[in-house]
């Protein structure tokens, strides 16, 4: 039985001007060296970045490649050729939706991805674990990335301090 479970074999974001890697993550050993990975990424980029190629999906060297272009980057989700194309698309959509959710609907671009690298990588980690889809609901994923945790301690402390001092002053005043 070909595996449905290991949906994603690799994920990468490439710069859409030259095709250089922004970030990448490989989930099996098909490309076991950085060189092989980059060679594959170049091949994928060459095929998908052509202006008149049309978008979103293609088949290359026995891999299914689903992708989405943004102003200066392209985000790729790659799966085995027997993978369910739509499953792969769903993963890509989950990733993009979650980022959009986390970045409050700012335009996704290289700057956003890199400046918020912690969110980008955590999102990926919450969606895919060793190629297996962990979660698909972008609201749940955003939650797990840890964004809704109690606010930052530095801030808390200062507020707490402020509150305490007000309390104290009030207390003193009442005395």
């Amino acid at each position, binding site marked *: 039985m070909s595996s449905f479970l290991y949906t994603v074999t690799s994920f990468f974001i490439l710069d859409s001007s030259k095709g250089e890697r922004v970030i990448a993550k490989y989930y099996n050993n098909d490309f076991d060296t950085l060189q092989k990975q980059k060679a594959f990424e170049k091949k994928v980029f060459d095929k998908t970045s052509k202006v008149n190629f049309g978008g*979103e999906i*293609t088949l290359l060297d026995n891999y299914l490649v689903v992708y989405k272009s943004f102003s200066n980057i392209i985000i790729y989700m790659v799966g085995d050729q027997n993978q369910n194309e*739509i499953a792969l698309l769903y993963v890509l959509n989950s990733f993009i939706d979650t980022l959009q959710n986390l970045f409050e609907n700012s335009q996704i671009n290289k700057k*956003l991805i890199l*400046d918020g690298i*912690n*969110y980008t990588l955590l999102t990926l980690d919450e969606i895919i674990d060793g190629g297996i889809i962990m979660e698909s609901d972008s609201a749940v994923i955003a939650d797990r990335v840890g964004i809704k945790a109690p606010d930052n301690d530095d801030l808390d402390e200062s507020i707490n301090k402020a509150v305490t001092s007000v309390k104290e002053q009030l207390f003193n005043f009442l005395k």
Partner: protein
Amino acid sequence: MASRVQKKDDDESDFLFENLDKGQVIQEKRAFNESPIHPRKCSLVISQFLYLLSRGDSFTKTEATDIFFAATKLFQSKDIPLRRLMYLLLKELSTISQDAIIVISSLTKDMSHKIELYRANAIRILCKITDSSILPQIERYFKQSIVEKDPHVSSAALVSSIHLLKVCPEIVKRWANEVQEAISNKSNMVQYHALALLHRIKQHDRLAVSKLVSNLIKNSLRSPYAQSYLIRCCVEVIEETNTEDRIFREYIESCLRSKNEMVAYEAARSICTFKNVSNKEINSAVGVLQNFLNSTKPTLRFAAVRTLNKLAQTNPTAVIPCNLDMENLITDTNRSIATLAITTLLKVGNESNVERLIKQIANFLGDINDEFKIVVVDAITSLSQKFPKKYKHLIIFLNKILRDEGTLQLKQATLDAILTVVNNIPESKEIALTELCDYIEDCDFPDLSVQILHLIGQEGPLTSSPAQYMRYIYNRVLLDGGIIRAAAVTSIAKFGLLYEPMKEKVVILLQRCLLDEDDEVRDRATLYLKLFKENDVRYLNKVLMDDVPVPLNNLQKSLELYLHQGDFSEPFDIASVSTVVETYQSPLLGDGKSPFSTGASKKGDSVTGTPKSNNASNNNNNNEESSGPESFATKLSQIPQFSTFGKLLKSSEYIELTETETEYVVNCVKHIYREHIVFQFNCTNTLNEQQLSNVSVKMVPSDPKLLKYECSIPIDVLPYGEPQQCYVAIRYIPANGYPLCSFSNALKFKVKEVDPSTGELDEPGYDDQYSLERLEIVPKDFLNRAFVGNFSEEWKKMSEDTQLVQTFSLVGVKSIDEAVKQIIKTLGMAPAEKSEVVTPKSAKHILYLTGKSLNNQLIYVRARMKLDQSQTNTDVELTIKSDDESLNDFVISAFIEK
């Protein structure tokens, strides 16, 4: 939230991380040791590490270990976002760092923490650093997490367990009850992960799987992922058990109606792979795909058309309802979709709609690039085999591409395609020639003009009105460059030779070329004129009509060798040139498979996924062979033991005696001398931990009386990866007949183990042997190819008294094409009069072959063949003519026992 991150870093650079230096970041891990911990600072440093990892920077073991240990300090922080990042960093580094198990106690402590995020992430790291010795101690955390209500924790535990199943299957299998319980978790994802794990636990027990699957079918799972997974399980059960139980098929069919596209698609594509599928099933599956074809989402269209493309191979009629929808996809902006649509349509195309289809494709030609046009050309060409009657439309279509703007590569592919059509469908000749004549009036590529002129010269004189072409050809002499003029002159001469009424005119035209400024043009014209005046038809034929009968590379090498040897007492004999490369199919004829069946896969859109390595290794072989035989004679004559054997008469092709991926790879070349045969064994040792010495091949003949053992030359030392040769020589007496027999073979050698890291040998080693495939001496080893100008004339000249006629049947040979190939291969002779070209789908054929014995007696063979009534065997009537009856018998013996 993003703005918060940006505020801090905006002042630095546009892309904060892009020029990040690894060494610098490693220094900054100090921040982890500060007390109190500054969450923001630490988060930033972790983010930088994570970025470096995902960018592809590599960390040494020491670096990774240092960072890993520093990061463990952060377990003290209560800042949740920081903790989340820390977990990810530990997980990423756990596989590079040493002694990662040190964090197990901290992680297990987290396992009882009240915050779910801690528990979920801790377990994901645990699964990475644990092994079968540790797992029993922390097993309870897994079991308890699997059954947790919180989906985050439960999913993390289940997915981690799936990974662990590869490490310690026995332990994970003990958790089956907990996993079963998790299937009823409210979360969709947990349900999916639990199903996958449970299925994998039971994977090796067919009955258990089948029970699990049928139970879950009744349970009605909600998760789309679980449903998709269950569909694949059903397919597996159906395929492996051939169950009569309808419930698996019914489940899949019910999933076709799912609102979730992924599930409906999974069901549809599964049904398309079923071997015995009912019309009802396939129709509803195709119906789902048809809907997808009209979707606005490219992925859905792609998925549907890809599946239909596959289905068209096994069940074309089922695809027909989608034809209209697919025609709309021909212009899809996504080229992959358009390609699949075209190849699918061509697969299911029929006589009535193919014309319209071609027109449709012609309409959008302007919108697509050259690379894709080549795909289209290939696909269209394959139609010529399927619908020979439509040649007119095909030729016109191809010509349109030829005339439009385009690269040489595209034009060449198109011209090749036209030649293929002309070769396959003789009726198409005239229209193709007319169109091509028009084209060369205005052709920017001299290469193409030359090829076209060659074709016109070859075929033009044989058409109904040859005169009409002359004007076009002579125009080239007047208007074009030297190389084209030369080709045109040759083409003109061919008309004079092949079409008697034009001979005088041709002579006049040739005379006009005598003053051409180009040497080549003048030389050609002079030569042809002289031959026409002497009316030397035989020689004209040879000069004008015969292709060089051997690969040009080989001819060049042979000529060089001939000149190098400096012995000109015998004239150079073209028959001595190796033809081995000819096993390579002529690109014009295609290889029975036609671009059609591989349609999309050709240009990287591999749908069928043909293994490329296979092709590559074939190519290698061919390269080797083409460089091989010419140098054999020189190489062998340098071996003292063989120096007395005389002239090398023939070398066979390579015969593999092992699989190509075994420990020792051996192939053999047979070298035939007048009284000797030398077996050259090319041996390769593919084991880097072994060195072989004293390597030889022991050959045991099936009939020892026929021959005498002469000598054997072993290989002294055969290190890893360097092919070397050992030889065995035998002697035979030609007067007693050739030694047709077979040998069983074994490779004998001494093995010494090598330490691959140091290269040290483990003395003294031991003797071993390795058995090889059998090897045969066959009649073809003693037959050479020969070339004659006009086969039918020579054939008539030979007396019928000594001819030998034999009929037999090639069992299991289902097509004429295959039969032709097999006969040529068995006899090793050269086909004459292009009789190796078989009209597609014909049921009978005549093949002419010429060859000669080692003492240069010519042999002519005519093979008449036809498919028998069952269409599974080919009946052959073989007629052999030569001056020597015993030679005839010898030739026919090649087919005995076949």
